[in-house]
C-alpha cells in the first residue's frame, strides 16, 4: 500500500508538485498520465527517496518513510526506467541478475535465472553475454524490463515504458508489463503519455496537471470522465484547458 498526502516539490520558482493525495492499493495497477514536465517522474522519485519532497508525507505499508531510507521497500521493488538505465559496464545477464548477485546467489545459478527471465521477455539466451550498447532500443527496453521483474518484486514502477519504441515493439512491451503485473500479482505505478499503454495496463488512471491530480478513476471510466482535462489529453486535442506551451 502506497499512501501520499499533500506531497509538494518545487525546483527554485518552478512548482512541480503542489499537494498530491494518492492511495495505491496492494496488487493494483495505477497509470499516471499527463503532459511533459508535469512532474510524473518527480512523483515516482519522491516515493523512491531519490528526491526529497518539500512537504507532505509518504507512507509505504503503513510506515512513514518521508525522511528515512526505504531499504525494506526497495528490497522487494523493481523499476523500468524511461531510457532503460542498464549498467553499460556489465553484460546483460549481470544487469538482469544484479539483485541476485548482490544477495550472494552463486554466479552460475544467477546466470541461469537471468537467462530464464530474459526468455520471459522474449530475449534469446545469446543476448545474455552481450553488453547493453550492443542491443537495439527495443531489446534494451526488454532487458531493462527483465531486470525490473527478475527478483519477483511486489511493487514495480514503469517510467514511460514505451517511449521511443515503434508501435509494434510498444505493444510487445505493454503486453509484457500486463503479464508481469498479473503473473507477479504486483502493485504497479506506470507513468506514460501513451494511451495504448494506459488501456493495456491500467486498473485505475490519474491525470497529473499543474502539480495536482486533476482526475483519478477506474480505467473503464476514462472515456466518460466528463473532465475537460482528461478529454483533451486522451483525444490529443490542441485546444482545451491544457495549454500546449507549459
Amino acid at each position, binding site marked *: 500500500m502506497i499512501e501520499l498526502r499533500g506531497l509538494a516539490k518545487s525546483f527554485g520558482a518552478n512548482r512541480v508538485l503542489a499537494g498530491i493525495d494518492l492511495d495505491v492499493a496492494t496488487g493494483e495497477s495505477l497509470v499516471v498520465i499527463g503532459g511533459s514536465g508535469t512532474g510524473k517522474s518527480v512523483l515516482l522519485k519522491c516515493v523512491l527517496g531519490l528526491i526529497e519532497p518539500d512537504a507532505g508525507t509518504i507512507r509505504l505499508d503503513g510506515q512513514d518513510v518521508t525522511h528515512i531510507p526505504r531499504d525494506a521497500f526497495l528490497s522487494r521493488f523493481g523499476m523500468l526506467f524511461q*531510457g532503460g*538505465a542498464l*549498467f553499460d559496464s556489465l553484460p546483460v545477464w549481470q544487469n538482469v541478475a*544484479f539483485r541476485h548477485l*548482490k544477495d550472494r546467489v552463486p554466479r552460475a545459478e544467477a546466470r541461469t535465472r537471468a537467462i530464464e527471465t530474459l526468455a520471459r521477455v522474449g530475449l534469446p539466451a545469446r543476448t545474455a553475454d552481450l553488453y547493453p550498447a550492443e542491443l537495439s532500443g527495443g531489446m534494451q527496453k526488454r532487458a531493462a524490463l527483465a531486470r525490473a521483474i527478475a527478483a519477483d518484486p511486489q511493487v514495480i514502477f514503469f517510467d514511460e515504458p514505451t517511449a521511443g519504441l515503434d508501435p509494434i515493439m510498444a505493444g510487445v512491451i505493454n503486453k509484457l508489463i500486463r503479464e508481469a503485473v498479473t503473473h507477479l500479482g504486483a502493485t504497479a505505478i506506470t507513468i506514460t503519455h501513451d494511451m495504448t499503454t494506459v488501456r493495456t495496463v491500467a486498473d485505475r488512471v490519474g491525470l497529473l496537471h499543474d502539480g495536482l491530480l486533476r482526475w483519478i478513476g477506474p480505467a473503464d471510466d476514462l472515456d466518460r470522465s466528463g473532465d475537460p482535462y482528461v478529454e483533451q489529453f486522451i483525444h490529443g486535442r490542441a485546444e482545451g484547458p491544457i495549454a500546449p506551451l507549459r
Partner: protein
Amino acid sequence: MIAVSALARLGARILGLLAALGRFAAFTVHALSHALRPPFHGREIALSLLQIGWLSLPVVGLTAIFTGGALALQIYAGGNRFGAEEVVPQIVAIGMVRELGPVLVGLMIAARVTSSIAAEIATMKVTEQIDALVTLSTDPMKYLVLPRLLAATVSVPLLVAVGDVIGILGGWFVSTQTLGFVSTPYLRNTINFLEPLDIVSSLTKGAAFGVLSALMGCWFGLNSGRGAMGVGRATKSAVVAAAVAILAANMALTEAFFSR
C-alpha cells in the same frame, strides 16, 4: 553604489565557494566512512585497481623516463657553469623522488583517471544508472565511490614508486650514454644520497594525490549537470580541480616533511 554591488557579488561568490567546500568536505568524510562499514564490493575494487593502477603503468613509465633524462641534461648543463657536473646523480635522485615523481604521476593520474571517473559517473547519472543502483538496494557511495577511492589510495603510491625508479633510470641512461658518467659509481651515488624520509615523503604524496584524484572524479561526476554538456563540464572541472589540489597538497606536504 557600483562598488557596493561589486562587493556584494564578490561576497556571494566567496560564500558559494565556502558552501561548495563544505559540501565536498562532508562528501569526503561520508566516502571515507564507508571504508569502515561492510558490505564491500570486492569485484568493483579489483576492477578499479586494474583500471587505475595497472593500466596507468605505461603512461607513468613514459612520463618518468623522459623527465629523468631531461632532468639529468639540465642539471649537467647548469652544474657545468660552476664546475659541479658531478652532482647529477644526487640531484636527479632527490628531484625525482621528492618532487617530480609524485607530482608528475599525480598529474598524469588526474589526466587519465580523474577524467575517466568523472565522465563515467556523470554519464551514469544523466542516464539514470545511479538512480537504478538505488532502486536495486545498492548504495552508489559503496558501489561507485569507495572502490575507486580505495584503488587510487593503494595504487598511486605504487605508481609513484615505479615512476621514481624509472625516472632515476632515465637520468642514469642519459648520463652514462651521453654525459660520460660511469654506471656503477652513478648508481652508488644515487642510492647513498637518498634518505628514508625522501622515500616516505614520496609515497605519502602518492597516497594523498590518489585520494584527491579519486575524490574529485567522483564528486564532479555525481554532481554533473544534464546532457553531454553536463558530462563535459563535470570532466573538465574534475581534472582542473584535481590538478590544482595536487599541486597545493604537494606544497603543503613538502613544507610538512622538509621545512626545519
